[in-house]
């Protein structure tokens, strides 16, 4: 009597948990569908996107572009990723890609070196590796899709501010940290561009908001008090441009001082809509994902090997040529303004 009960309860426990697990697995294999077919064997057009982390609007947008491209050329798209943007979190997913033997893995690297060995193991298993947004060291990938060149970023911002202030007057730059390498490179190039092509524009000062919202806000206020004739502020950092726009939008300078630079549509939307900001620049992550997916396809098909001078066609974006260090440049930065900002959510 007693023994039978004991056995029954043990079995019941087993059945309850087994049912849970099996139904969980079963449920997910339903959604798998086409996956089982395309999982094995190289040469198939299965492309997996591995962003820095999931739930990040920027990568949601780039993956959307990737998914559209994969659908266009009839491959199988998957998006996987860790919840936290850490290299070790990405390694498990890279390993999984190696196990699946998928056609190509499109990665935004959380570390230029730490995920390298895992990527090379996947490449040994026949998977092509394309990095986008954030590169690894060149020996770990077949191709890097570069969102924008330093020259392109500098020129886009100078062109924007020149157009907005009528190509003449005083402007200032609100940067991130004083020792931020990429910021300093851009500012240097902007200065050269202004000197060479815009003789009536004068960059009066570069201030540093340390990519901190409050610091950037205070620096904007100080700039406007110090230079009453200031006509524009360029901030090549997403934190800075949003803080500057917020200050200007609530001050008397609204409409008189133009704010532009590099920003994201979600941060800048209200300032574009209320007229503080005419236009700002960034690359289009959707196009970036789209291009990365087509580059992956070209690698899988063997159309390109990632050597300098290789060319391939990326659907609606047209033809691209592989540059030095197996890098493909997306193109000039994308300009967001009142007319197109509604199309973006990142």
């Amino acid at each position: 009597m007693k023994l039978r009960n004991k056995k029954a309860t043990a079995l019941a426990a087993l059945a309850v948990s087994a049912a849970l697990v099996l139904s969980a697995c079963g449920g997910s294999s339903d959604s798998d569908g086409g996956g089982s077919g395309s999982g094995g064997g190289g040469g198939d057009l299965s492309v997996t996107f591995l962003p820095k982390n999931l739930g990040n609007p920027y990568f949601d947008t780039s993956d959307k572009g990737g998914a559209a491209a994969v659908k266009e050329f009839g491959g199988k798209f998957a998006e996987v990723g860790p919840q936290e943007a850490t290299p070790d979190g990405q390694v498990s997913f890279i390993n999984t890609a190696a196990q699946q033997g998928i056609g190509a893995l499109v990665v935004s690297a959380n570390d230029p070196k730490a995920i390298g060995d895992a990527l090379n193991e996947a490449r040994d298993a026949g998977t092509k590796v394309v990095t986008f947004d954030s590169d690894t060291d060149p020996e770990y990938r077949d191709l890097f899709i570069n969102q924008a060149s330093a020259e392109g970023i500098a020129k886009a911002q100078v062109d924007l501010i020149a157009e907005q202030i009528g190509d003449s007057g005083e402007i200032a730059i609100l940067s991130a940290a004083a020792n931020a390498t990429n910021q300093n490179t851009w500012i240097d190039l902007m200065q050269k561009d202004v000197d060479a092509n815009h003789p009536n524009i004068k960059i009066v000062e570069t201030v540093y908001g340390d990519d901190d919202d409050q610091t950037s806000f205070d620096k904007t206020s100080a700039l406007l008090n110090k230079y009453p004739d200031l006509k524009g502020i360029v901030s090549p950092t997403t934190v800075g441009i949003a803080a500057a726009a917020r200050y200007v939008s609530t001050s008397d300078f609204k409409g008189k001082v133009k704010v532009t630079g590099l920003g994201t549509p979600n941060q800048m939307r209200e300032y574009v809509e209320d007229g503080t900001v005419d236009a700002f620049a960034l690359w289009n992550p959707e196009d970036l994902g789209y291009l990365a997916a087509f580059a992956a396809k070209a690698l899988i098909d063997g159309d390109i090997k990632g050597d300098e001078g290789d060319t391939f066609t990326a659907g609606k974006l047209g033809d691209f040529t592989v540059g030095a260090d197996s890098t493909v440049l997306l193109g000039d930065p994308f300009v967001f303004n009142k007319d197109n900002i509604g199309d973006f959510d990142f």
Partner: protein
Amino acid sequence: MTTTDTPRTQSARTYPSYAKSLWQRVLLTREFAVIALLLIVFFYSRNQIPNFDGPLTIYYLLLDVAPILLIALPMTLIIITGEIDLSVASTVGLSSVLVGDLHQGGMSIPMAALVAILVGVLCGAFNGFLIAYVGLPSLAVTIGTLALYRGLGVGILGTTAVTDFPEKWTDLAKDRIGDSSYPVIVIPILVLIIVFVLLLHFTPFGRGVFDIGLNDEAAHFSGVNVARTKFLLFVMAGAVSAFAGIYFTLRFGSARGDNATGMELQVIAAVLLGGVSIFGGRGALHGVLAGVLLIGVLQSALRLDDVSANVINIIIGLLLIASVMSTSFLSFVARTTAGMKRRATEGSPERQQASAHHEGNNS
């Protein structure tokens, strides 16, 4: 129910744990339910999940679960005493940072690893001292040291990462034994498993661990050195976590302050899934090993199925809740059936056995 468990009720005149034949005592337990579930999930995945039967699966799976498996060993003993150590993942992070920072400063990897393990021992000793000798609650102490050790780790390296490790050592962390699909990390793991199984299940020290979990005052009066036992367990947890940190660093070739963030919860989840009672006094290492592997197999299979990380976490969370609930559910069923039986066999000596049985076995 293993032989190391002792019945809790004083009223029972018979010993329900020993009232059944050996195979029933060994096989009809939570531990074997987890092992059976592990086998079911494993073979289900082999048949149903594409590429799960590939040559890389076992290799990557073992590489992935290795740090959790390592830390689960001392964690099991700590939880059986009724304590908890939430600072293990921060110790992993600190050890990782130390290996990276000391190596960057010119120290060889073995020396840096040695220093990291010593610091791990110190971290564990600090926890153990506050808990065992000062008498503070382990939950509070280790929440504090969780922040403290993580803070030290992040403080040393800041937001930078050290990734420049010699290939000899990063390759060793990922090396296989011969041509098999077993990575070399399983060798130290097996050694530690044997050590901890012997320690917990076959020594007076291990019996003391269970006694402390059941009732630490009674354990004290029956000659168990409660403070020393707890202190040593936390030191072991610190040392093993530091070792796991070294492995983690070399496997990913990256020393960062935020390495292994949140791993303490994965370890504790696996330990509880393996049938260890969070209230202490109950548990066995074979169940914990199965619990760790079950989580590993599930993660691997679901990832191969392109299930996203948050859905995987949801499934593992539900599994843990179901497993914890099944204990309460079983004792409810046992209580109900015992009640029914009491009415049916009023006055028979089996009544006491039945009630003792649900308290002793299913708590």
